């Protein structure tokens, strides 16, 4: 909402600009911008063109001698309309125009001390034809624009609860409340002439639920033409286009009073019962209306329309129709001022994709107290600026006005909510400054009546907010609440998610954050069999229309970005939700039944040099074991007390020989692997890429095993090593598990403290199909020292058993 200060001054004594901005901010009216064009353009002054000469190097340019009463200078000008003797707007060096600052510079080899400005260059109109030629009596050296000719304006951000502030009068009231100054009553005098209004038109409300009040006046014999300069200027200063005096008058009154008005060409309204007739009604089936914007609209049964005797002529409170639009030939108008139902207007506006100054105000709630005042004001303006004759009286159809609602305010409640005790008199005064009148007092508290322009005030809490607002939020003391008891007997919430994050960061993986939605094509491969991603009905575009089903596509996108930007080693993780369609249970709360399944996931992607190109990297690349290590640390960091188990598996989109299912505590928590080269290629990536995705909901739910202390061993242990050459198809873990179970031989597995893979070798002289694996077996008994003979016997047996159980060869 734009507020022009001189317009505001019609209704209230306006404080200096900075004070006004501060006062409004403290009242909760956001000052988005202060537009002070005059201050900004103070370097543009009136100058006389003494001489116009041709430019030596350019046909279209002129070299002008200008004089501003004290300084004479040469200015290069490209406008065709410059002429000797003119008074012009000289933007001197140092002046700041909306688009650029003026510097001294040479134009095609001739120094120019600034420029001769066009109105458009000063931001005073959209498009100019040549430079601005000022009146002959303009004073040399004076700024071309002053605060008087172009008063400052404020751009205010009005919250949806305050329709009353969408007008100059409304803002004036707020200023009055803050400054204590009285509102000024402008000298509007309406002179009526000629027949009764009721003999010129009739109004019927067939849809009372949509329209509580409809008032009409008729203005006849008016002359449509341009608006007077003052009106034009005021409208243009708040960003409105001047059309003609008739349209401008209704617009002007809207921005002045907040009441939207509409003017129908009286001659174009269909007649019923011998009179041009207005009907407020619901559309009939199939009815259409071409609105002022030229769009033909099929009307919905829920739309509220204004119709004449036959056809719709306006979408009530939203936009007029083309058929009844006023034109240059209009001589008589029916002025409409009404109160339309906010929700009805809003639904209609959304349905038709329209958002107008009128609908904006009706949706938020017009002031029923302003209906007639605004109508009179507009009629008076038309009489003044369009020489119209205002017919006597008003045709008004209205429901019985609701009695003003009384709101009870308990004084204890004010202190209870705000934390500050205010004397009753203070409360009454603060509210009275906002025209919220105290109408009764008793033991229960105070009764107040809110003014008609404040539809937002209906409850006690609304009054408490007004008290706080007027008292000043800064005046309310600060205090710290006491929460010492609340969590004393409650376990602290789980920090597992943060622990996992820390473990991944410590493992060298960087965290990324990507959007929760993206391209359906990217997610489709990552859906459960037969399922599709959840779609957004009104996406920003097809590419952003599906909720993510996996974190991997997003991570691969980030990997690709970094590969393209020269990264040599990329390790990424993301913790985020994925979404899948879900069939809610019949007995589920209706508000949960339709929600998709959300799963908290962690995704990991690794690619590139193992040590980020540091000196100890020696050409090593990240491989599956690095990924496994990261995931093992992730699970260790989660402190579930159980290890991560990797099982060789076939995983879609993964390398068939380098993928695993992940388990913790016997529960499947995800998969990991090297991406299939086809997938890498299709994504435009450089491989090999390692990728994993884990279900954090499952991991967070794993109950950590309680830790029990074991006494330290008192007897020495001993170690035996065995190396085997095994086909690559046999996972090391199978051999290790065999040894762990059998290395004890006749003594049983209890003597085997641990079995560890301590060497893996591939290469000559081992065949390419095979791997050399070396295991260290740690023997120990808690009760006594094992003898060499016992251990050797068991070990030899186990090695023989290993060879019998697997196609492996023991290396000697």
């Amino acid at each position, binding site marked *: 909402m734009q507020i022009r200060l001189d317009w505001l001054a019609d209704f209230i004594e306006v404080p200096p600009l900075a004070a006004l901005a501060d006062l409004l901010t403290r009242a909760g009216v956001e000052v988005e911008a202060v537009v002070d064009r005059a201050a900004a353009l103070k370097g543009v002054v009136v100058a006389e063109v003494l001489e116009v000469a041709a430019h030596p190097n350019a046909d279209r340019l002129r070299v002008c001698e200008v004089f501003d009463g004290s300084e004479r200078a040469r200015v290069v000008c490209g406008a065709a309309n410059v002429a000797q003797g003119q008074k012009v707007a000289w933007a001197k060096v140092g002046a700041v125009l909306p688009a650029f600052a003026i510097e001294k510079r040479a134009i095609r080899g001739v120094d120019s001390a600034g420029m001769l400005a066009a109105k458009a260059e000063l931001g005073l109109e959209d498009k100019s034809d040549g430079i601005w030629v000022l009146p002959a009596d303009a004073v040399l050296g004076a700024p071309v624009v002053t605060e008087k000719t172009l008063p400052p304006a404020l751009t205010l951000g009005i919250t949806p609860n305050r329709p009353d502030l969408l007008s100059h009068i409304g803002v004036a009231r707020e200023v009055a409340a803050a400054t204590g100054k009285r509102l000024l009553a402008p000298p509007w005098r309406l002179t009526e002439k000629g027949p009764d209004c009721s003999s010129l038109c009739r109004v019927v409300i067939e849809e009372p639920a949509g329209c509580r009040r409809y008032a009409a006046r008729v203005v006849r014999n008016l002359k449509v033409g341009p608006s007077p300069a003052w009106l034009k200027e005021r409208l243009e200063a708040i960003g409105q286009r001047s059309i003609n005096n008739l349209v401008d008058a209704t617009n002007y009154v809207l921005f002045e009073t907040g009441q939207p008005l509409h003017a129908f060409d009286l001659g174009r309204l269909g007649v019923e019962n011998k009179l041009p007739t207005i009907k407020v009604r619901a559309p009939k089936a199939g009815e259409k209306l071409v609105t002022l914007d030229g769009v033909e609209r099929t009307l919905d049964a829920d739309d509220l329309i204004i119709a004449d005797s036959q056809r719709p002529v306006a979408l009530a409170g939203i936009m007029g129709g083309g058929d009844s639009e006023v034109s240059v030939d209009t001589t008589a108008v029916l002025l409409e001022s009404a109160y339309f139902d906010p929700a009805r207007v809003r639904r209609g506006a959304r349905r038709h994709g329209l958002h107008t100054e009128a609908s904006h105000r009706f949706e938020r709630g017009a002031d029923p107290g302003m209906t007639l005042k605004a109508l009179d004001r507009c009629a008076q303006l038309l009489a003044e600026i369009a020489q119209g004759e205002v017919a006597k009286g008003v045709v008004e159809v209205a429901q019985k006005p609701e009695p003003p609602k009384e709101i009870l305010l308990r004084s204890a409640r004010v202190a209870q909510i705000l934390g500050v005790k205010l004397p009753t008199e203070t409360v009454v005064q603060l509210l009275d400054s906002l025209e919220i009148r105290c109408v009764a007092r008793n033991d229960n508290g105070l009764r107040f009546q809110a003014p008609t322009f404040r539809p937002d005030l209906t409850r006690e809490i609304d009054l408490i907010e007004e008290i706080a607002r007027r008292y000043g939020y800064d005046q309310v003391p600060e205090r710290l609440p006491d929460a010492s008891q609340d969590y004393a007997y409650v376990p602290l919430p789980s920090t597992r998610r943060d622990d996992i994050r820390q473990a991944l960061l410590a493992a060298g993986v960087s965290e990324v954050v990507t959007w929760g939605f993206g391209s359906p094509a990217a997610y489709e491969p990552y859906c459960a069999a037969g399922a599709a991603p959840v779609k957004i009905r009104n996406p*920003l575009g097809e590419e952003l229309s599906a909720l993510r089903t996996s974190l991997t596509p997003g991570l691969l996108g980030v990997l690709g970005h970094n590969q393209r930007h020269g990264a040599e080693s990329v*390790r990424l993780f993301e913790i985020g939700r994925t979404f899948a369609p879900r069939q809610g249970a019949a007995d589920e709360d209706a508000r949960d039944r339709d929600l998709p399944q959300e799963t908290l996931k962690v995704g990991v992607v690794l690619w590139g040099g193992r040590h980020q190109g540091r000196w100890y990297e020696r050409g090593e690349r990240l491989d599956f074991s690095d990924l496994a290590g990261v995931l093992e640390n992730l699970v260790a960091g989660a402190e579930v007390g159980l290890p991560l188990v990797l099982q060789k598996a076939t995983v879609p989109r993964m390398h068939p020989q380098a993928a695993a299912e992940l388990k913790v505590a016997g529960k499947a928590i995800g998969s990991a692997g090297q991406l299939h080269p086809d997938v890498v290629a299709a994504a435009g990536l450089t491989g090999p890429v390692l990728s994993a995705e884990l279900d954090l909901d499952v991991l967070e739910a794993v109950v950590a095993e309680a830790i029990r202390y074991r006494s330290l061993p008192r007897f020495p242990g001993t170690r035996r090593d065995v190396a085997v050459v095994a086909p690559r198809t046999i996972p090391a873990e199978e051999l290790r598990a065999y040894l762990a179970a059998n290395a004890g031989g006749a003594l049983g597995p209890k003597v085997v403290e641990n079995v560890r893979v301590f060497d893996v070798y591939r290469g000559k002289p081992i065949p390419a199909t095979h791997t050399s694996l070396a295991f260290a077996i740690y023997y120990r008994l808690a009760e006594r020292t094992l003898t060499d003979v016992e251990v050797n016997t068991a070990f030899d047996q186990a090695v023989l058993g290993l060879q019998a159980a697997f196609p492996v060869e023991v290396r000697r």
Partner: protein
Amino acid sequence: MEDLKRIERSVLARARRAKAPADVAEIRAEVLGKKGPLGLALRSLGELPAEERPAAGQKINQLKGKIEAALDEAHARVQANARADELESGAQDVTLPGRRVVPGNPHPLRIVERDIIRALESLGFAVAHGPQVEHDWYNFEALNFPPDHPARDTQDTFFVSDAVVLRTHTSNVQIRTMVKGKPPIRILAPGMVFRHDEIDATHTPCFHQIEGLWVDDKATFADLKGVLHVFAARLFGPERKVRFRPSFFPFTEPSAEMDVSCALCGGSGKGGCRPCKGTGWIEIMGAGMVDPAVFEAVGYDPEKVQGFAFGMGLERIALLRWGVDDIRLFYENDLRFLEQFRPGDTR
């Protein structure tokens, strides 16, 4: 006894030539052992006439003492040489970067989230989560956004169906927490939210909020101010001033915006200060007392419980904190960007 002379010469020469402690040990074992030349000499004493034996024995023992001294000296010499060699060859380049797993970079939005949570946890708040795809009732209606109310215009919404939306704020977690639990409630709800905004340097359709809710039987607007001032002092520094100004949110009343004084101009706004647009203040968050209508929606008696809520955008705090000029950088995840938030680790 010619033999003893020869033994002496040869052993002492060998001791002088010894290079390593092992050489010395070898000589010692060979010469002084039972089967060594001195041992043999001692054993051969019996072959001498009885009267010559003491003198010969004495000579052998003297030689033994001399050899032992020479070997001890040789041992000390080679030991010292060996240590000197070890020190010489053990030179390390201490300027080389350490061999390590270089830690990953935390995301700036997570740093902000963590710092906000840390600032508030000790006041009694605990983290809570809720769905990102939400029923209209939790996202709007229970929060006092009636259907067909213009307040919904302030939050352009993505729809999955008529009744299911991508949550436009983390305030749905307020409702879910209150519906499920009972006061006292103090939660912080961080997470991703969605608005139907065109993408530019200051808007993205996905972004992050963190929201606080405090409900008991006595929390007042004064408590809200106290908590948020403590928060601001912890997050931005105790020298920053705070300001509360009236605002509007459907689910709080009275509603407020909290500003902190601008760090760049110290709150003066002088010189056309850019971050604060010359006002001296920077908007940080919205807040307010929970509206009685919200309590009624979740089945609480607004006469018996009261409290406050506040919420802010993580991106906004991050933009301000690090002077980032384009919000899209947070989602591009360029490692050269992410690395800047763990400075000083470039080796």
